[in-house]
């Protein structure tokens, strides 16, 4: 009996912990003149004030885990969080309209346009191209000067092949994301010198994918996956890439989600 009570208490507390990590959306309503207080000093009067009424909704009634496979889910957690609790899921919550710099070779632009179409099979994700920069929120821009995630010091340690194949050598990207890690615009910055790089298309495909997810790449991702560090000539999205992306965009979280809150959601 004692054990039964202990087990019950343990389960209740466990349930409590998981719920705690999932916030509730607060809907507010200002009710005019709802507060009235009798005042007798400095003069008899009624103090009238508005009231802010807050109602809380569960945010996760629509959350359904996408990945049923335990192993794949574990891979997802690595790519999305790196098994660290300080990292939050990054998602786009507006349709993505890509504008290409005119300096980009035609065949690259065409290949990328075809590649982007594949993303439209993903729920909550919409990618298209536009010829009007004013209508865009994603820019693939070519820079005269050299842009790179690597410093000059880093370059001294890279081999010629690595300089050619490392995705952030000669290319970087910037995103505009809000406080909840929801992104609304972005730029891939491409060094002019990269236009001659035979791996440019592959690099752009990988970086675009990463800019949608902020995933970590790993040596343990499936072969040929864009997420596999060894993939230097990415041709297309693999099933692995698509499944993880589908899981990532299965639900647009209306709040910040880290590993703990993600695990809690899976327990719901």
């Amino acid at each position, binding site marked *: 009996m004692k054990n039964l009570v202990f087990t019950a208490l343990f389960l209740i507390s466990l349930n409590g912990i998981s719920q705690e990590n999932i916030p509730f959306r607060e809907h507010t309503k*200002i009710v005019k003149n709802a507060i009235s207080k009798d005042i007798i*000093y400095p003069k008899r009067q009624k103090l009238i004030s*508005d*009231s*802010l009424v807050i109602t809380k909704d569960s945010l996760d009634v629509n959350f359904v885990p996408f990945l049923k496979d335990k192993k794949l889910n574990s891979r997802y957690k690595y790519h999305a969080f790196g098994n660290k609790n300080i990292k939050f899921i990054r998602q786009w919550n507006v349709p993505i309209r890509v504008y290409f710099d005119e300096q980009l070779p035609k065949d690259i632009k065409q290949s990328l346009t075809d590649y982007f179409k594949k993303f439209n099979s993903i729920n909550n994700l919409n990618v298209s191209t536009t010829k009007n920069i004013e209508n865009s*929120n994603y820019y693939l821009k070519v820079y005269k000067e050299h842009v790179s995630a690597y410093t000059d010091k880093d370059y001294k340690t890279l081999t010629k092949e690595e300089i050619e194949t490392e995705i952030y050598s000669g290319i970087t990207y*910037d995103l505009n994301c809000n406080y909840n890690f929801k992104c609304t*615009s972005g730029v891939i910055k491409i060094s002019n010198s990269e236009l001659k790089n035979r791996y440019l298309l592959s690099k752009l495909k990988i970086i675009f994918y990463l800019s949608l997810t902020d995933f970590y790449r790993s040596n343990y991702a499936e072969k040929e996956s864009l997420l596999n560090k060894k993939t230097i000539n990415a041709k297309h999205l693999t099933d692995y890439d698509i499944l993880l992306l589908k899981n990532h965009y299965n639900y647009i979280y*209306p*709040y910040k989600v880290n590993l703990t809150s993600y695990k809690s959601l899976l327990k719901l």
Partner: protein
Amino acid sequence: MKTYKLILFTLVFGLFYGNAQQGEVFISLKRFKQKYKRALTKKDSLNFRFHKNDTLVLDEFYVAPTGTKVPYDYKDDNFLEIYKSVAFNNVTDSTKQKSFMHYWKDDIKIYISKSFDKKTRKAFFDFTNKVSEKIDSLNIYQVKDPKDSNYIIYTDSDFQYEPRMSKYKSTDYYVYWNNKNQIYRMSMRLKNDIEFNSNLKLNKLKNQFIISLGQFNYTNNNLDCKNFFSGCSKPNFELTELDYELIKYHYSYGICKGTDLKTFEDNHKRTKENINKNKVLTNLIHN
């Protein structure tokens, strides 16, 4: 009735901030002991006053606090919780009670560089004018000469008005405030390659502008995303009624401005207790 008024007067000003002009201030025995840490003398007992079940004693050495009296603007606790997380940094961090609120004391005179197209400039000033109209004590207007401004908006392709930001890699702003936490100068610099079209520029301008009105934060509450202060509003946002109420309150005459979080919380706790228990509405004293 006359006696009742006298006692009430002494209670109010004795317990809280007394009025030295009236001469005598009476305080409760409990407060007397806390303040002077000595036994009562015969002289003290000659000056006792009684109110309900309380004995009041004359506070001979009472010194009225200096500062400006601010009429209290009552807000409910739900509102105050959200306001605190918007106006003060690190509200949830109990070790950082010394976070301060910041505000503009003078009119905000904005100069915006001509490298922003006319349509963007107009849309931005339509937005700031609306804010200015809704917030009584906040005047915001456009100036044509940077020399007349205290708020400069430019891009990385313009003259670099704020040298400290010239090497920043992203859009940012730089703000100056004095020892009273009054903001007196501000520069906002947009990076053309990140905000690469007029829609993105306008959205960033509006966003940073609201934040810059008080070094505001997005709230820790999970407010509905339609509210700007939720931190999850989408591009082309408009301010909601709650957003406006938060800014209005920040610039209301009914709060002490530039205070730290602890002072803000103490002021509210004391004044609300006074309203609820004693039905007395006191002013706040703002130094």
